[in-house]
């Protein structure tokens, strides 16, 4: 009785095409955003913000980016880590070269560079599809990381080979670097993520999103009704890489503080891919759910043995953790191959009828 759209009539196409056509959804999402902005920074501990909330948001953004490419445009990519690295290293180069430019603008510029790089590595999608393309995108992953590792210019020739977030202010508040508080970094991250989540939603419900899905579902038919598949795929690569690059920049500057190429290894690419598969392909909301799952799971697995009073050697525990992670992924894929977003949808349909079974 609580959740139903009965009585909510749309009198214009505009209303019918809005992001949340059902009022309850609108209220629910607004509530979550309000809690995220006003309640969490006050109540959450430094640890919770730093170890859970900030990475969760940043990975959500990366997951949205990859979901645009894989879930909407249907181009399987394993190069996420590489594009994230582009964002991070370009932010570092730009902000050390031009310290006066607002860091948020630097993030966006770095994202644009990542988009360009993504465009270039998307070119093989002209000729190859599916797993062949996936393997080809690995080339970007390995090549980019190798380049950032090998070419000292990218990390300003420092001896350690790491990039470190310098302190940058906005409106008089330090938002990056070691002096920035977790609350500030959390809020900045949150705002960026909310804005770009809405932009992603706008893109996928408009012409571009429909072109992407058309190419995904049947590229020949898409071509014949007048969509240029190659151009459409390239835009998908560029937009997706923009998101990933932005996430990579935020990862170093708003979360980790410093990083080496190792932080963007192929495992990160797989993790982000897990997020969108488990969250739900072709769902913006699913990207958030998937990121929550994949960020939360290792934290849970690390702490679970202590909770039940089990103790074992550290490396043994690490192995078991990896094992459990793998098994849970397989288990989840078997139980709900369409991801958490589908689960949520089923829940909603149940809720619509509640308290009656039919």
């Amino acid at each position, binding site marked *: 009785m609580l959740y139903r759209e009965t009585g909510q009539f749309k009198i214009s196409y505009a209303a019918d095409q809005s992001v949340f056509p059902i009022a309850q959804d609108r209220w629910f999402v607004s509530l979550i955003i309000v809690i995220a902005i006003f309640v969490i920074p006050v109540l959450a501990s430094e640890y919770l913000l730093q170890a859970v909330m900030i990475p969760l948001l940043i990975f959500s953004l990366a997951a949205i980016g990859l979901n645009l490419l*894989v879930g909407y445009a249907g181009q*399987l990519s394993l190069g996420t880590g590489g594009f994230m690295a582009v964002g991070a290293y370009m932010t570092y180069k730009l902000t050390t070269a031009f310290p006066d430019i607002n860091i948020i603008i630097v993030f966006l510029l770095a994202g644009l560079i990542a988009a360009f790089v993504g465009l270039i590595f998307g070119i*093989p999608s002209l*000729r*190859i599809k*599916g*797993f*062949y393309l*996936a*393997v*080809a995108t*690995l*080339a970007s992953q*390995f*090549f980019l*990381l*190798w380049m950032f*590792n*090998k070419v000292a210019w990218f990390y300003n020739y420092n001896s350690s080979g790491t990039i470190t977030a310098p302190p940058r202010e906005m409106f008089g508040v330090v938002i990056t670097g070691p002096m920035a508080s977790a609350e500030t970094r959390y809020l900045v991250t949150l705002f960026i993520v909310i804005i770009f989540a809405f932009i992603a939603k706008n893109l996928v419900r408009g012409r571009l999103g429909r072109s992407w899905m058309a190419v995904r579902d049947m590229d*020949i*038919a898409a071509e*014949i009704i007048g969509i240029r598949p190659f151009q459409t795929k390239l835009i998908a690569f560029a937009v997706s890489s923009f998101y990933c690059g932005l996430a990579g920049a935020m990862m170093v500057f708003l979360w980790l503080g410093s990083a080496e190429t190792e932080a963007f290894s*192929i495992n990160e690419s*797989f993790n982000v*891919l*897990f997020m969108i*598969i488990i969250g739900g*392909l072709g769902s913006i909301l699913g990207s958030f759910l998937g990121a929550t799952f994949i960020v939360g799971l290792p934290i849970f697995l690390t702490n679970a043995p202590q909770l039940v009073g089990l103790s074992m050697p550290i*490396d*043994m525990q690490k*192995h*078991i*953790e*990896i*094992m*459990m*992670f*793998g*098994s*849970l*992924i*397989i288990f989840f*894929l*078997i139980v709900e*191959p369409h991801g958490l977003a589908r689960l949520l949808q089923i829940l909603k349909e149940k809720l619509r009828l509640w308290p009656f079974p039919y």
Partner: protein
Amino acid sequence: MEIISFLNLVFVNPLVEIFSYPIFFAEVVISGLLTGVMYSLVALGFVLIFKASGVFNFAQGAMVLFAALNLVGFIEQGFPIWLALLLTIIVMIILAFLIERFMLRHLINQEDIILFMATIGLTFLLQGFGETLWGSNVKPLDLGIPNQSFEVAGLLLNEFDLFAAGSGAILVGVLAVFFHYTRIGRALRAVADDHQAAMAVGIPLKTIWIIVWSVAGFVGLVAGIMWGAKSGVQFSLSLIALKALPVLILGGFTSVPGAIVGGLIIGVGEKIAEIYWRPLVGGAIENWFAYVLALAFLLFRPQGLFGERIIERV
């Protein structure tokens, strides 16, 4: 001036070197071919499973590691080598059975990407399980094959590499015979062509899957022995899967000859690039060079080495 010296590095110096020391070049090519055989072996495991079940089995690398870990583990427990080998093969068959029973069976008719992700999960599972069981330190694997070099007609060759290449070739031959002349092989090819049609004529899909994953496990074991004997059995063994992937896009996911020839091409190309073009890029290119090579090739021939040109129909 910069440009001239750059062009020199790219086009002139390497070629000059190649032509002035042809014997050395031949050695480079041969050593590349031998490495290539090892890549082929790993790629073969991928191809077998992809052909028979349409699954892009990312866990092939982890299976190589897992097999090698078990073998070394059994040898450390004091079993003689032949018994350890036999036990490992049994373990790999059990593994194939478990994978079918608990994973594949439940994922029939899911999209390819779901199955692919499941095999990434399997990768983690196998890595974690193998190392929980046998520990994560580097273990030497000594097969008693001398690792010595000798000279033939002025060429310096390594005995172990030749042995590895020889066993690889034999394995490939055996597999080819198995696929072409046995009943199971025929059934396998039928399944590869069309699952449903194969089921309709009464081929037991599940059995076929267990067989093919067992064979892939066995191929993984052979690859694990070769690589393990060369560089010790350790975690990084599972990363050779990443080396086999460019072989796959070069040779095609479904082509056994493609995997073999592709492996050889990548092996040789990588060695040559590493030795002659090293000054240009500053080393450590083995991570990505193979991919770029395969990609460049694909841009000119998208159907891969042995694929047929596809005419798209609507």
